[in-house]
């Protein structure tokens, strides 16, 4: 890699050992990619310094268990602990491991809770915004068109590139932490114009309207194109933010989609020619009623028992409108005894839901609005959960495999019905 004088100074330690270790990691990473230089990034979203009990205990025996030790040795992949300077630029912390108030309900220990509080205080003290969400764009960090970013969280990355037109690769914990100290990331992939053009054409020949429809289409496309860039055209109502959120999250889970174009809707796709640039589509993929039915069946292949004991909503973290919809469906009703409904969102969005009375309505029905995390990230379920109902294709992809439970996929309304009756009755 060719480094500027400023980058060389960071690498040789002139700007302190923290930036030196960060630069060392970024150079190894850039060389692995085959990148030739760095690009300056002004907006960085990661999970700096967070540690599970396993990590903390491991590092207690291998160099030290403080926040700085974990940040140095895990985040910067350093063999020694170094001081953690203030970060530069606009940096935020994405999702965390537990709700700051409802951690007991989530089955977390006081020890784990107190440890998380300490981590959070360190994050805040170093100049990183505590957003604690997979949807930073709904909680106070919306990049500008064309802005170079270093984000992790695959559903946020695909949103950032596709819907906003800002530029980021799918970064990881180590690269975002290093970028927070240096303001640099390898100039590779989606930072470059040529990588942002579409590669595969998706012809949609069945109406795609509801949030559930968009989730299924995303799940189908991710599986079909893997890490390529789909250009979607056909029978599509213009998607709103919630539909984009579910579509992109699903495509990033079943495949590795980091950017997509919807002709006439996303900012870099005013026309088919603009979306493709000089690329000729490698493949034209058809999505019709049969494909739609197959993806629905695939998303429901983990379900056998129709008795549902847990409903999880808010993957990716719910918007205010989605919480309002759940509140409307639950108003004046009661979740079946023995069932649980947990809805996940960010602290910023929850404060608005509180203001509107949505949180109280959901609680009065027996459900809980939780922040910071989700069942997959926090690896937590209501006690005794065997069968979950989900309205997110992404969550269906992960949760049953991670937690060894059965899962049903359907609309938000199907899921709330299951919470009220204890039975799954969803249909395509």
């Amino acid at each position, binding site marked *: 890699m060719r480094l500027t004088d400023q980058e060389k100074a960071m690498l040789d330690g002139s700007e302190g050992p923290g930036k030196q270790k960060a630069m060392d*990691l970024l150079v*190894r*990473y850039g*060389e*692995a*990619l*085959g990148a030739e230089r760095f690009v300056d990034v002004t907006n960085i979203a990661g999970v700096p310094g967070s540690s599970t009990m*396993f*990590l903390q205990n*491991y590092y207690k025996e*291998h160099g030290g268990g403080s926040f700085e030790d974990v940040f140095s040795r*895990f985040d910067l*992949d350093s063999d020694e602990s170094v001081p953690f300077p203030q970060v530069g630029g606009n940096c935020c912390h994405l999702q965390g491991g537990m709700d700051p108030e409802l951690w007991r309900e989530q089955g977390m220990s006081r020890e784990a809770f107190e440890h998380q509080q300490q981590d959070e205080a360190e994050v805040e003290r170093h100049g990183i915004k505590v957003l604690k969400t997979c949807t930073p764009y709904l909680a106070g960090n919306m990049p500008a068109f064309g802005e170079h970013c270093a*984000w*992790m*969280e*695959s559903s946020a*990355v695909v949103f950032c590139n596709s819907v906003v037109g800002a530029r980021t*690769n*799918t*970064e*990881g*914990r*180590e*690269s975002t932490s290093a970028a927070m100290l240096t303001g640099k990331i*390898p100039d*590779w*992939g989606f930072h470059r114009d040529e990588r942002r053009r579409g590669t595969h054409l998706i012809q949609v020949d069945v109406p795609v309207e509801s949030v559930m429809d968009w989730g299924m289409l995303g799940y189908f496309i991710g599986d079909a194109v*893997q*890490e390529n860039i789909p250009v979607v055209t056909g029978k599509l109502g213009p998607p709103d933010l919630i539909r984009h959120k579910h579509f992109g999250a699903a495509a*990033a*889970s079943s*495949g*590795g989609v980091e950017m997509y174009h919807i002709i006439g809707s996303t900012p870099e796709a005013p026309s088919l020619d603009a979306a493709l640039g000089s690329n000729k589509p490698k493949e034209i993929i058809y999505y019709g009623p049969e494909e739609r039915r197959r993806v629905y069946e695939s998303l429901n*292949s*983990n379900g056998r028992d129709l008795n549902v004991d847990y409903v999880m909503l808010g993957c990716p973290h719910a918007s205010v409108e989605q919480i309002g919809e759940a509140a409307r469906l639950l108003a004046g009703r009661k979740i079946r005894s023995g069932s649980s409904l947990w809805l996940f969102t960010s602290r910023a969005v929850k404060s608005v839901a509180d203001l509107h009375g949505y949180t109280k309505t959901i609680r009065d029905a027996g459900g809980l609005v939780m922040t910071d995390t989700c069942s*997959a990230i926090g690896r937590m379920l209501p006690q005794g959960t065997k069968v979950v109902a989900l309205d997110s294709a992404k969550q269906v*992809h*992960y949760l*049953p*495999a*991670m937690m060894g439970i059965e899962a049903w996929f359907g609309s938000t309304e199907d899921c709330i019905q299951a919470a009220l009756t204890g039975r799954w009755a969803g249909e395509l």
Partner: protein
Amino acid sequence: MMITLRGRKVVGGCAEGEALVTHDTISGWGGIDPMTGTVIETHHELRGVSFKDKVLVFPGAKGSSGWSAAFHLARIAGFAPKAMIFNVMTTKIALGAVVTRAPAVTDLDQDPLTVIETGDWVKVDGDRGVVEVTKKSPL
């Protein structure tokens, strides 16, 4: 018999071991259990199989941005693969390979997914980008 493949360094160093080959891309966070080094993804052809101490041969990475952290955890928990050989470069696999600190190569002159089978003995020289394959059974 021995087959030599040439490509480019992703992570330097030398290692050898038994090959574990999959034609499915691998998901890191949520796709493997770092505490056992096992693939857990529902529809994956290696579901339930451990890659600990294997030379992992795969098309590339997919899924969550927690890819690197999952393999990083597997490394410190003692369940990392010995080396990695893959076809499609992404930021997930590049960063993941760097923090796994296992020799890794890509851009090989023959498709490793065709040449290498599970059970073959494979030597990876990360710095030179060279892979030597000893077939477990004659071709």
